[in-house]
């Protein structure tokens, strides 16, 4: 079909961009979920932690 014409390199590029976009879009959501397991003090801590303790 038409897509087989696309080179492997451009396919890789497309996948990278889409994955980066996915990470950017989903990160706030993930942060929110992880934050729901943290205590008030830990949530406001500076510098912030990623995984709840």
């Amino acid at each position, binding site marked *: *079909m*038409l*897509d087989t*014409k696309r080179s492997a390199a451009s396919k890789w590029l*497309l*996948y990278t*961009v*889409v994955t980066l*976009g*996915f990470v950017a*879009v*989903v*990160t*706030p*959501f993930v*942060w*929110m979920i992880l*934050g729901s397991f943290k205590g008030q003090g830990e949530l406001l801590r*500076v*510098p*912030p932690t990623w995984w709840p303790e």
Partner: protein
Amino acid sequence: MTALTPAPSPVASTVPPVDDKPPAGRRRRGRRKGSSERQSRAAWILALPFMLLFSVFMAGPVIASLYMSFTDIKARDLRSPFAVGFVGLENYIQVFGDERFRKAAFNTAYFVVIGVPLTLGIALAAALALNKGITKFRTLFRVGYYTPVVTSIVAVAVVWRFLLREDVGLVNTVLGWVGINGPDWLGSTTWAMPSLIVMASWRNFGTAMIIFLAGLQSVPVMLHEAAAIDGANSWQRFRHITVPLLRPTILFVTVTTGIGYLQFFEEPFVMTNGGPLDSTISMSMFTYGQFGFGNYGFASATSYVLFVIIVCLTAVQFRFLRSNT
């Protein structure tokens, strides 16, 4: 479509049927006329619940607020709503004379002019990528891109306010990796609005993406194949086949996103409360504030101004984006 019963046309019921049968045919004639009467009566009865709800909860308040916008009614007068002064167009003149409203109107225009193309651009790009380009994990990506739509703005606002913090926010940390010193996004009069636009785009592009995906799938593959054989590259195919066929879809998402963005309220309300220095206050927020102060007449006038603007913009969009096939 097969006709199950000979549906009597409206004309038939007004024109007396040909009377060539003896009284024995009276029953049939009566049934035909009664049947259409019964159908329209049934239609009215079925429509009645909706019409009642609509007039009480939608039409009623709309008309009431139109009436209020021509008076100087305040919250205190609500128990005697007719004992108020008729002020004609004074509220409307005051609306345009209010400096804060003009700022809110400018902010709203800024938000729509930048936000709508940005949201739809991201949505279209994502839809194109996820339509044919990506074969593996397609569902995962589609779900992931759609999740911001289902989040609650109040919950998301807390997260975003943290992400946009100048000292430890994730955005500035990432920018720091490439050597850029990020500003105080929500505290700066220049950057607060762009931050809100990006956040709104993040939240809303999912819906447009899904609609674009549906629209893309209705573009016949044959056309693309034929064009490819004729030597057209991807960009040309996109411009001359996809976009024209997508026009109705584009019109739909532009109109709905435009209407939604003209009324944007939640993002500035929970993120910046209109600040800093009124750089993010929107027309809806302004109206909300005025209702809060109890200036019902003035606030109603403001909401009608917004209504007229929405109608005008939608009319313009229909004019320019309607399908010309």
